[in-house]
């Protein structure tokens, strides 16, 4: 009896083990992270980027190391379609032509393998349609292939090292031999699903998203856009005309690359952004006790500038219709004063500012003394003035509105970008030679003199002193200095660790898992808030705000000019919070094209970029049976079905023989 019980228990345990449910599809597929994929964008006339077929594009993996590997499979592949897994440097126009000429390729997987000399898929002249005339006579980005702006008929996926290893292993085990029998055997294949909903151009997809007759309303595309950040050095809360004439210090906030979720942007915009923030910080400390000033400073961080100057076009548009910085609201007793384009006395824009021997000051046509002021305050590098054509920059949007505005673009290049990786995934920390030192405040000895931190500190010192000279009218004589520790920390925030000290200080919380892509320097779409833009805005507020002893620390609705934030007292003292009063605020960076009711898309006046919507971005690997085997399976299934239909027919017609009915010798009730 005992033995029997024991056997039953053993049997049950075995069954429990067998009953463990693993779905067939989970056994079949190896699923990878599919987010780093090229996707589709649209402007008023074209679509660019990539899309897979509906339900995913499938191809046999072919691991490529050199161009000859690729040409080999294009010439000798006998399978139905392939997806080459190739190094990033092979993605260039010549290889693409080769692939497109041959119908064998259904998609591309790219991996990162070695350092490159240059890699930029931006155009040779960025934003060529929105610049001032003649800007594109110069090839600013000479290495640019323009691939970012091509419409590609297949998906492109960027793979990380772990996934690449699995793909390579699968390729060696199943594919990498006897290529002539590829059509006859099971092969390791990959499915890239990045099906894009929108096509043709922005007006088409906007129209289709808003159709009233549509039974199945779908949003096809979202306009690119985000928030601009602005702040003033002195509050505009008095009636002095000097507080309403502005020296503008501007920089851009965004970058782009070919792949979703990989937007490093070290040289552009991070070097200029950090220089901007460090200048603002220094300038604020310089003017702490100043009361008499000739001019105010407007700090302006513009978003979406990589896509035909979305942010600056919108700022200019708002200035034209008296809606900048805020829309005039009737209930405010102290409305925010308006800023108009004619209130700008000098426009200083920071472009690429990675380490270099010489700085270049690109002047506008309208002459200003800014170069001589900068030169007088420069004690660390050569500085040159460049007249003539301005490089592509946000200032173009302002100059279109007011041709005789004086200004300058400060950059480390004269006619061609020093940065060989503009708007690419290689524009990362190593491209600007950055290393994080994690020093405490005041102890900068550890950071070498030739580091990017020191370079940025020197540039911002020069800028801050020059702006001080412009707005106060005399040279700075105090003993405040730039904070290299802050610069080190800011670079760390934007390049390495978003959960850095500055972000903890301004947001008063540790970053948890953030929704993907919300912490990137890509402008994104207006319907999804970009958390990094908010963090940068708060950082500017933290650096340029005044500590107040307001106990409430809350915004007064009648005085919309000021915002109040509880933020850490300093980087070394994150847990003590004080209340900051700041003029920092956000302004919408959505192209005017999307808010003007009867905008003529053909005019090309404003940026018209939008991003297609999609449902899934997924990548999975599996063993695809030979087509003969697939046909065989289908045939077996079909034959079984037809046979069973025939069988049922015969059974039914002969039912009276097969199932004889009993003699009807009983009454209805007792049968």
């Amino acid at each position, binding site marked *: 009896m005992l033995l029997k019980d024991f056997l039953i228990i053993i049997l049950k345990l075995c069954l429990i083990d067998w009953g463990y449910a693993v779905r067939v599809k989970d056994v079949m597929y190896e699923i990878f992270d599919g987010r780093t994929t090229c996707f589709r964008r649209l402007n008023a006339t074209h679509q660019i980027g990539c*899309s897979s077929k*509906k339900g995913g594009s499938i191809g046999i993996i072919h691991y490529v190391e050199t161009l000859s590997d690729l040409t080999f499979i294009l010439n000798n592949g006998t399978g139905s379609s392939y997806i080459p897994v190739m190094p990033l440097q092979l993605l260039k126009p010549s290889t693409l032509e080769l692939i497109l000429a041959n119908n064998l390729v259904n998609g591309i997987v790219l991996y990162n393998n070695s350092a490159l000399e240059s890699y930029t898929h931006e155009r040779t002249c960025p934003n060529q349609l929105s610049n001032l005339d003649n800007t594109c006579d110069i090839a600013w980005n000479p290495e640019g292939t323009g691939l970012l702006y091509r419409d590609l008929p297949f998906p492109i996926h960027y793979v990380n090292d772990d996934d690449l290893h699995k793909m390579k292993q699968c390729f060696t085990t199943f594919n990498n031999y006897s290529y002539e029998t590829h059509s006859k055997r099971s092969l390791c294949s990959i499915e890239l699903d990045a*099906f*894009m*909903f*929108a*096509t*043709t151009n922005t007006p*088409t997809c906007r*129209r*289709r998203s808003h*159709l009233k*007759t*549509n*039974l*199945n309303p*779908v949003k*096809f595309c979202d306009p690119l856009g985000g928030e601009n950040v602005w702040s003033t050095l002195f509050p505009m809360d008095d009636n002095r005309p000097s507080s309403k004439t502005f020296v503008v210090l501007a920089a851009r906030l965004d970058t782009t690359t070919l792949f979703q979720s990989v937007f490093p942007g070290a040289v552009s915009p991070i070097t200029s952004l950090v220089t901007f923030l460090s200048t603002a910080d220094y300038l604020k400390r310089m003017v702490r006790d100043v009361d008499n000033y000739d001019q105010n400073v407007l700090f302006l961080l513009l978003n979406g500038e990589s896509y035909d100057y979305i942010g600056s076009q919108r700022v200019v548009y708002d200035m034209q219709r008296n809606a900048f910085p805020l829309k005039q609201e009737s209930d405010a007793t102290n409305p925010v004063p308006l800023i108009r384009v004619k209130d700008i006395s000098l426009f200083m824009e920071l472009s690429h500012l990675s380490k270099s021997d010489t700085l270049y000051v690109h002047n506008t046509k309208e002459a200003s003394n800014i170069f001589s002021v900068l030169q007088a305050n420069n004690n660390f590098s050569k500085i040159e003035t460049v007249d003539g054509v301005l490089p592509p920059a946000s200032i173009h949007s302002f100059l279109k509105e007011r041709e005789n505005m004086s200004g300058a673009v400060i950059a480390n290049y004269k006619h061609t970008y020093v940065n060989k990786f503009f708007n690419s995934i290689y524009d990362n920390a190593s491209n600007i030679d950055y290393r994080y030192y994690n020093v405490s405040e005041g102890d900068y000895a550890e950071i070498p003199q030739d580091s990017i931190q020191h370079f940025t500190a020197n540039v911002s010192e020069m800028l801050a002193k020059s702006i001080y000279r412009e707005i106060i009218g005399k040279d700075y004589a105090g003993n405040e200095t730039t904070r290299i520790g802050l610069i080190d920390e800011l670079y760390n925030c934007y390049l390495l660790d978003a959960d850095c000290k500055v972000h903890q200080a301004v947001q008063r919380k540790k970053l948890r898992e953030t929704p993907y892509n919300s912490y990137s320097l890509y402008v994104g779409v207006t319907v999804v808030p970009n958390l990094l833009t908010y963090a940068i805005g708060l950082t500017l507020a933290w650096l340029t705000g005044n500590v107040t002893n307001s106990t409430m620390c809350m915004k007064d609705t009648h005085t919309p000019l000021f915002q109040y934030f509880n933020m850490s007292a300093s980087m070394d003292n994150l847990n003590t919070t004080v209340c900051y009063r700041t003029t920092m605020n956000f302004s919408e960076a959505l192209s005017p094209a999307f808010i003007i009711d009867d905008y003529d898309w053909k005019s090309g006046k404003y940026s018209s970029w939008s991003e297609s919507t999609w449902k899934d971005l997924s990548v999975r690997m599996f063993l695809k049976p030979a087509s003969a085997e697939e046909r065989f399976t289908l045939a077996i299934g079909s034959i079984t079905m037809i046979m069973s239909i025939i069988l049922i027919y015969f059974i039914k017609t002969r039912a009276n023989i097969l199932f004889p009915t009993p003699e009807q010798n009983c009454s209805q009730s007792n049968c």
Partner: protein
Amino acid sequence: MDLEKMTNDKKLYLCKWYFKVGFACLPFLWTVNVIWFFNEAFRKPKYDEQQHIKRYVIFSFIGSVIWGIIILSWIIAFQVNRAKWGEFADDISFIIPLGVP
């Protein structure tokens, strides 16, 4: 309704009604009429009303064929030119396919 159980004049009445109602842009009704009364009109032994039923069935057939041609050519023209017609084509669409021009 089972035609087998119906009287001949009832059949004629029904067939005539289907034919008439078909004029209200309901070609599918004509097609149903043709299929339903085909046996009555052509394969049943002769009876008085059959001549009339036959006529309605033939006219229904002609009508549904004409309609079929019209609908088919519209479908072809629309599908071929949908992208080219742009805004007009979108306005008269109830469902817009994803990811195609």
